[in-house]
């Protein structure tokens, strides 16, 4: 039904429009908001949230949730930092381990949710605490440092955040990851099954499909993304402090929801998620450029989340009123 499809595109356009309007608003209301350094800051702060938000989009489309991604990201980054500083592993190998740790946590979540049939909320809540605790235990609650742009291995920051010429190189990775994951979700079997599971898991099972494996894959993707996010977080902030990271998952989930993905499953897109990430990031930096302190950012992010979900409910209701053929 063309009207129905139009509605969906309308929603996406609305999110883009909201992003542009926000940007223009802050361009006038804020100080130096459109300057290149601020732009770099907006981008830089979007990288790690962007990665985990893209990853958790897969889980949310299956109708699940992953609360562990923030702390898994920190735990992975701590492990990498420890391997690099304390065990003198080459940086590149440490980074591989960062991704590996994230992926393993994802697999752990996947097994809990599918084979052991735990509700995703409980399973990932447990993993959130486990990964946070584990990060502190193995590091003896000491912070881990990644090389800054001036140190040896300074390429780390140049490659994953920005070049010396102030080119946002990290954005290239995020763009690349965005394209790959959008293709995976829309053009491959795993993507199709993830949508189908979110739409009606039992129908998929009764179609003779091994639902467990595909659902598990969504959690593995989320874990992998959290691992990748760990790299970009480390490159941006250079210090990883144990016992942190919780709360980041909620930022990522908020971005996913703002982007039009339904927590009920079956509906969502990676492009929506990316827009959601940037809406939050523009909002945060914009409020800073207006000189408003952090609590305002939290406050307005909450307003945006509620507004976006209300809009989503309204849209779904409208769509359901469409007469059957």
């Amino acid at each position, binding site marked *: 039904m063309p009207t129905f499809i139009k509605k969906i595109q309308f929603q996406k356009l609305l999110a883009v429009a909201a992003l542009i309007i926000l940007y223009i608003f802050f361009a006038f209301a804020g100080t130096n908001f459109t300057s290149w350094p601020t732009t770099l800051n907006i981008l830089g702060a979007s990288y790690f949230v962007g990665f985990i938000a893209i990853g958790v989009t897969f889980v949310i489309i299956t109708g699940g949730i992953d609360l562990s991604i923030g702390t898994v990201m920190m735990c992975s980054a701590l492990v990498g930092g420890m391997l690099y500083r304390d065990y003198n592993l080459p940086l590149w190998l440490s980074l591989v381990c960062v991704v590996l740790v994230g992926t393993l946590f994802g697999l752990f979540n996947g097994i809990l949710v599918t084979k052991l049939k735990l509700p995703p909320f409980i399973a990932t809540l447990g993993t959130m605490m486990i990964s946070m605790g584990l990060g502190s235990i193995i590091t003896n609650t000491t912070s881990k440092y990644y090389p800054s742009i001036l140190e040896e291995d300074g390429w780390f920051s140049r490659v994953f955040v920005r070049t010396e010429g102030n080119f946002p190189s990290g954005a290239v990775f995020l763009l690349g990851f965005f394209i790959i994951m959008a293709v995976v979700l829309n053009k491959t079997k795993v993507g199709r099954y993830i949508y189908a599971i979110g739409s009606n898991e039992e*129908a998929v099972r009764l179609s003779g499909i091994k639902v467990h494996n595909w659902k598990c894959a969504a959690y593995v993707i989320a874990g992998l993304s959290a691992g990748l996010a760990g790299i970009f977080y480390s490159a941006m902030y250079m210090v990883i402090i144990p016992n942190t990271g919780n709360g980041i998952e909620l930022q990522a989930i908020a971005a996913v929801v703002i982007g039009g993905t339904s927590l009920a499953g079956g509906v969502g897109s990676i492009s929506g998620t990316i827009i959601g990430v940037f809406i939050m990031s523009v909002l945060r930096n914009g409020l800073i450029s207006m000189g408003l302190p952090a609590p305002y950012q939290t406050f307005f992010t909450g307003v945006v989340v509620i507004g976006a979900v209300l809009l989503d409910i309204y849209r779904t209701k409208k769509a359901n009123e469409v007469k059957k053929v």
Partner: protein
Amino acid sequence: MKDGYALEMVGIDKHFLGVHALNNCSLNLKSGEVLALIGENGAGKSTMMKVLTGIHQADGGKILYFGKKVSFKTPKDAQEAGISIVHQELNLMNHLTVAQNIFIGRESKGFFLDEVSINKKSEQLFERLGIDIDPRTKVMSLTVGKQQIVEIAKAISYDSKVIVFDEPTATLTDIEIDVLFDIINELREKGVGMIYISHRMDEIKRIADRITVLRDGEFVGTKNTAEIEIDEVIQMMIGRTTYEAPKQSSNVKPDAPVVLKVEKLNSRDIKDISFELRRGEILGFAGLMGAGRTETARVIFGADKRTSGDIYINGEKVDITSPSDAVKYGIGYLSEDRKRYGLALGMSVADNTVLPTLNNYLNGPFLDEKKIKEDTRKYVEKINVKTPSVDQLVRNLSGGNQQKVIIAKWLIRNCDILIFDEPTRGIDVGAKSEIYKLMNLLVESGKSIIMISSELPELFRMSDRILVLCEGVHTGTMSIEEADQHTVMKYATLNSSLHSETVTKVS
């Protein structure tokens, strides 16, 4: 009975986002009569009732209730004025008791609950209606049929002057239908006006005084039941005659190979089920609610756990422990509850159709959308699924067309054994005969079908043999030549003292 109407709906108009759902529709209802409201799915029956009960507001026309113009803003308004509706879907709270459900929102005036009083009121109500259910039972422990009866009792408990029944018998057994009809007859004597929505012509003939027919959102006509034949009614509904006599004899050759053999199959719900299915055969599964027909199918399909017993496909013993095993061996299952178990409603026709066969549509790691759509289009045409395009969301198709999408799904998977579980439930007459035609085509092309149905006429029309279950036990098998409805019902109630008691009471 007074001369005036209890209810008049005149020239009702309703639009949804550009779709003209109701166009100048009218009906009227006297006190103490049953008016059947019929029409194919999407004819506007439900919308009409939603306008009446305040779920939707009409764009045009008027509603007169005992001569006074009314316009209900919410279902509660309608209910307080004395108009109740028994919805097709159950709206009960499973974890509450029967009495708690019936009196929800009317518990007691004070702060504390008075369980004793609502239990007593429920008992009185049930006694009056001749229902044998303990009001203290939790709703979830009742069969679907009994739950439906509770729903009906709830509507009656409001002492309404007008009651709407929206396909009340869809989940009822024949015995429960008799109970319902007794209730309706009693209400009729008390002067309650009833609107009865159903697809089942025999029931309408039995219970309704007059029939109002809608088609495509328009009013077709109102007739006295006594003066009209079923064929004429169907004609009014769809504008064509579709009547088929029961099958006279089986076309399956006695030496046709056995494609599926089941030996002493056991699970939580079924006991020692054995049977054979031949190539090109339709094997009907008859039985009452809870007889274990769906449960048997689910065990064979690997959806439920098999505790013991063997399954042979084409003579070879196979181990089926999951639906993916069953599909591998060429078994396809069409669930009785399409929306819950059969379809991903939010996905397109093409996506649903190729769901079990996605591996055949890979181009490297990518999905071959072009081939998916081409193949789906081929099957959509072959079995005549009415959809504007293969990109249409399944949610927007009618029940009959949704069912066809599931059939297409298994055909494209090339399944040789198909289990049709209540394939025509909630499907209008026109689409029903198309499903029947399709099933006949399938067996002619060498597929084999197990057909589970609660409608005996349908089983007799389609089956080559009928297997009867009762409470999880196989009580009898007969060929179509020797089967008659009476024998089937006898076998279907064979095992159960509870049922046979009711049977004797009814007969």
